[in-house]
């Protein structure tokens, strides 16, 4: 083995050793920037879905007549996750209900915090620590008139070259008294990822 070969070997080993060390960098980024790290359900999808659904509901003519003289009370049931990813669907409904509330046309009752509210009321009544004149009475809450619910489903296909993910998000608004669905809409998202040919 000659010298140049040995240098090549040493150089190669050195490259391999340094190749393992990566420096971590922390930066602030734009929360609304388009995120394309992978094909999984991400922040851009969440923002898009929430925006489209809230706009569609607010601008729908049927809902326009419902909200003409009053602010209907809605409760959010849940978004059923039918995909093959663990998605925090509560985060989607949170975004949608926030946008709807901000539109000023609807009012909401929050079913996720009923237990906490009950605990507080029980504390006010039973604790002996709260001034009886300011205690909030039981049975005065207002019932919801409408239920908002939906489904998120996906179709995933992949082969050696690429991955294709299709998401369909459906939402509906049901009149709890009559059982009629007053409004429905759906959004589709398609994401594909082609694999690079050569990489480390």
């Amino acid at each position, binding site marked *: 083995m000659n010298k140049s070969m040995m240098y090549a*070997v040493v150089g*190669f080993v050195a490259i391999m050793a340094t190749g393992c060390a990566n420096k971590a960098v922390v930066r602030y980024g734009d929360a609304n920037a388009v995120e394309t790290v992978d094909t999984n359900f991400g922040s851009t999808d969440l923002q898009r879905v929430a925006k489209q659904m809230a706009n569609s509901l607010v601008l729908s003519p049927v809902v326009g007549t419902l909200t003409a003289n009053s602010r209907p009370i809605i409760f959010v049931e849940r978004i059923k996750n039918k995909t093959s*990813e663990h998605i925090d669907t509560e985060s989607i409904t949170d975004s949608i209900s926030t946008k709807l509330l901000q539109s000023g046309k609807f009012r909401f009752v929050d079913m996720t915090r009923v237990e906490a509210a009950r605990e507080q009321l029980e504390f006010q009544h039973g604790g002996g620590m709260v001034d009886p004149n300011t205690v909030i009475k039981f049975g005065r809450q207002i019932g919801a008139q409408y239920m908002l619910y939906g489904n998120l489903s996906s179709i995933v296909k992949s082969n050696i070259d690429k991955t294709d993910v299709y998401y369909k998000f459906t939402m509906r608004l049901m009149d709890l008294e009559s059982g009629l669905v007053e409004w429905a809409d759906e959004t589709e998202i398609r994401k594909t990822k082609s*694999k*690079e*040919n050569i*990489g*480390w």
Partner: protein
Amino acid sequence: MIDLVVMLKRLFRISLFFIVGLAFSSCSSMQFQDLFSGYAQQMKEVRQAQKTGDFTKAQALITNRQKGDNNYALSMLERARLQYLLNDWQKSQHDFSLVYKTLEEERAKAKIQLSKGLKQVGAVFSNDNAIAYEIPAYEQSMMHSYQALNYLNLGDLQGALVEIRRANLVQEQALRANQNSIDEAELDFNHIALQNTYPSMDLMIGDLKNGFQNAYTFYLSGIMYEAAGQANDAYIDYKKALEIYPNNLYLQQDVLRLATKLGMVDDLEHFTKLYGQLKETETKDIGQVVFLIEQGIINAKDDLSVHLPIFYYYDDARYFNFSLPVYRDDTYDFQQAKLTLNHIEYQAQEIVKFQSLASKHLSDMLPGLVARQAVRVIAKEQLRKQISKDGGDIANIIANLYNIASEQADTRSWLTLPNNMQIMRLTLATGKQDLSLTVSGQTQEINIEVNKNRLTLVNVSAVGGVLNYHINEL
């Protein structure tokens, strides 16, 4: 004096070969012990502890591996499985999710990976353990099944269903990949010479069609879909499970029951012809109880030394010794689980035998393994020749010793899995029921609550003289 300098120089050159070899398996992806002792050997103590039912000790004995290690995902699978056996759902869930993450990262990588190529070269000079462990489809589907049970045990049916869908995705992809590989021409290697020295695994494989479709995962999927009120999805998965295990009486009844419920007229006619009428008579206050029983521990691969002819120089066939992994015949016959309720005895039925899946998977992989091994034997022989030319007798001996010691079969596989799984499905009157369950000679009294028109799922694991059970009311 001069001789010594020359010899030292030679030794330095030889050691360079090994440094390069180790560097090829870059970023310390291989632990030193992997070079000279097989995985099954390293896991011996863990398995011993698991067989005696001491899961805490078994878990502590697993070698800690860093991310990037060839066996990182595998050791995580072992740990998560033992945590599952210890009823530590949260930790088990966490470790399984780490395995899934590495799998996802692997899937996102480029089609041709330079680092993989280097590892292959590294493997040529050492053994297959220098290549990162690829988790076979049957192990992946089991990972998702356990993960689904973890979610379920933590009260998250929706999360469990996500894992079930992932498991089904794995099986679908494996099926598609299998169809593609059948179309490809088969590797050219000496079948007859191999058959003469390599023991047949046909007995263990039985009449299994492929090494990746796992009826248990389909069944679990069916149960969870039923619990979520998606009877149609459940029906499809029960049918898939029945296709793999057509003789399972419980599966037959499930398919008949759902075909009736969903009004699948053509299917019902077809299945009634095959399996007879639906036995169940609908009464009012009944509920369903499903038992999923896992039994024993899967076998480890053995290191088999075979003597095969390889065409070395043109037409000159020389015999070489090399190591191949093999499953020895599993003669131990497991008894089917039995259940007694109100003096009536019920018998469980097998839904998957992991030993068969693993054996089938190995026998499918064999042509590739032999081809790689042949390349390796020749490369090592060339290296030895070169070294002995440069370094004389001592170097020759060292090179020979290295070749013998590093000749290790790839005995890696998920070793803490059970040997087989059985199911039992009973329709019982609502209310409290006391029953006694016997698995592998152990008897356990179980009290369950049967809810009206609901499903009670009982997960039983009989591993190493310990009978554990966990009840979920779905």
